[in-house]
């Protein structure tokens, strides 16, 4: 057990190294950082709640979009670079099990996205804080109540985004373990992310009564198979306090994310076991 953990850790360490030594990661990081920072110049001058919301929407939108791109493309790339370059052959001839290999890939990619989310959220926090100070000063002069944002909420949101990207990585790895090519994995992985974004529509539809059992079965299966990725988007509520978020609801979202993550990794490991390298 301890050896197994260690091997997983070594695989993820090298996976992490590989990813951060690539230009793709740096490129996306710089691009998204530029997006967060540019929200300062694009702001609407209404000195109110709307302004912080604009900055937050813009920044978290960028984190969400580029994070998903990174999670899909980079994970597929990290997996297929080992398969196509036959380095997986060298590694798997050692006392390393297939699930250890896949889990190593997972944690390596997840760590990279952790860095990504953390860097962007820190920038976002600085931008929000700077604007908040200006708004407070302006509000005092005008004798209004200033708008503020919540640091704790920002931290919670970072964790939620990271978990959400972890679910995406797990899905992409499950697809990779089955797929023959990088391109197929990226295409199907992207579709899965889009499906996850739209999952709530199927969930809504499922709650309405229907005559067709086949349609109901389809909805039931798709709402179980595909995680609802929208449920992690609590930026307004957590950071700007637009509505109260109950602790229980937050925990439920986390647990559901973890459950999908574990389920997809298990599925991926089972498929990868059968794969001929």
């Amino acid at each position: 057990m301890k050896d197994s953990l260690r091997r997983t850790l070594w695989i993820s360490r090298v996976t992490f190294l590989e990813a951060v030594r690539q230009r793709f990661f740096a490129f996306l990081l710089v691009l998204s950082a530029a997006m967060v920072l540019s929200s300062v110049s694009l702001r609407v001058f209404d000195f109110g709640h709307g302004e912080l919301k604009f900055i937050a929407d813009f920044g978290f939108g960028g984190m969400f979009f580029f994070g998903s791109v990174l999670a899909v493309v980079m994970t597929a790339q990290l997996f297929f670079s080992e398969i196509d370059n036959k380095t997986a052959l060298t590694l798997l001839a050692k006392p390393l099990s297939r699930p250890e290999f896949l889990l190593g890939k997972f944690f390596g990619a997840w760590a990279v996205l952790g860095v990504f989310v953390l860097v962007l959220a820190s920038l976002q926090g600085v931008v929000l804080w700077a604007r908040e100070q200006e708004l407070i000063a302006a509000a005092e002069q005008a004798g209004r109540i200033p708008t503020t944002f919540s640091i704790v909420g920002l931290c919670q949101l970072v964790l939620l985004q990271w978990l959400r990207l972890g679910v995406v990585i797990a899905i992409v790895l499950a697809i990779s373990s089955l797929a023959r090519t990088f391109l197929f994995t990226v295409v199907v992985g992207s579709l899965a992310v889009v499906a996850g974004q739209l999952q709530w529509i199927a969930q809504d539809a499922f709650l309405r009564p229907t005559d067709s059992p086949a349609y109901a079965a389809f909805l039931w299966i798709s709402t179980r198979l595909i995680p609802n990725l929208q449920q992690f988007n609590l930026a307004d509520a957590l950071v700007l306090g637009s509505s109260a978020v109950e602790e229980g609801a937050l925990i439920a979202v986390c647990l559901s994310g973890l459950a999908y993550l574990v389920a997809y990794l298990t599925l991926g490991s089972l498929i990868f076991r059968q794969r001929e390298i």
Partner: protein
Amino acid sequence: MNSAISVRHLTKDFRIGIRGLKLRAVDDLSLEIPRGQVYGLLGPNGCGKSTTLKVVLGLVSATAGEISILGEPSATSAARRRTGFLPEAPYFHKFLTGRELVRYCAQLSGVAASDLDAAVEDALGLAAMKEAAGRPIGTYSKGMLQRIGFAQAVVHDPELIILDEPTAGVDPVGSASIGRMIHAMRDKGKTVVLCSHLLGQVEQVCDRVAIMDRGKLVLEGAVEDVLSRRDRHVMTIEAMTPAARTAAEAALEAHGAKITSVTHPRRSLEDLFRELVTGSRDA
């Protein structure tokens, strides 16, 4: 004593394309590879050598047949802990340095943390890769790739070392040094299994060979037995004169022996190359 590798009636079919056409890569192959020898698996490209080795290592599953290595089923990690493998045309993680790669492989193979540094340096020394070990693998020449591959295969001191085309694409000087590494392993009591289509080199390195063709075994035995023609003899004579030759012919004929050919010995182009060229720059 049990064999290092025992393959019994191994058959491997690959399914190709969506229609699942079958391609038989290995066809009812049986082999017993003894311990402590250098064993060569020979044959033309595509005859199933690599596939056989992959099945032995549990990297692909057998369609039929049984395999054991070092007395254990090949899929167990216990067996793989005692085995080292250099894959065909190796490409390693380009962004790592040679030393980082060997270290990584040592860790995955279960080398204890306290022995790690010594094991890595030993393996690098054995493969003559100490000088280049600090460079990224992306900058290595083909010969260096094979040598760093050799280092990662032996870093955990395995009993059985499996090398897939260890000298493919390597110049004769490099091949000779790989040959010496292989003999060094055998002298330590290890079993080395290699596959190759470069027959001249195999002849110099192996104790025993098996020849495969289209997935089937066509010949197996000790190199000496397979190659020597015990009914013929070769003498190498210096300072021969025509008179000496006539006398020798007469003397041999008196005993009923017959000279069928007289030629000048030739060295192989490879030997000549090795004499002239002292070493490539990356050696």
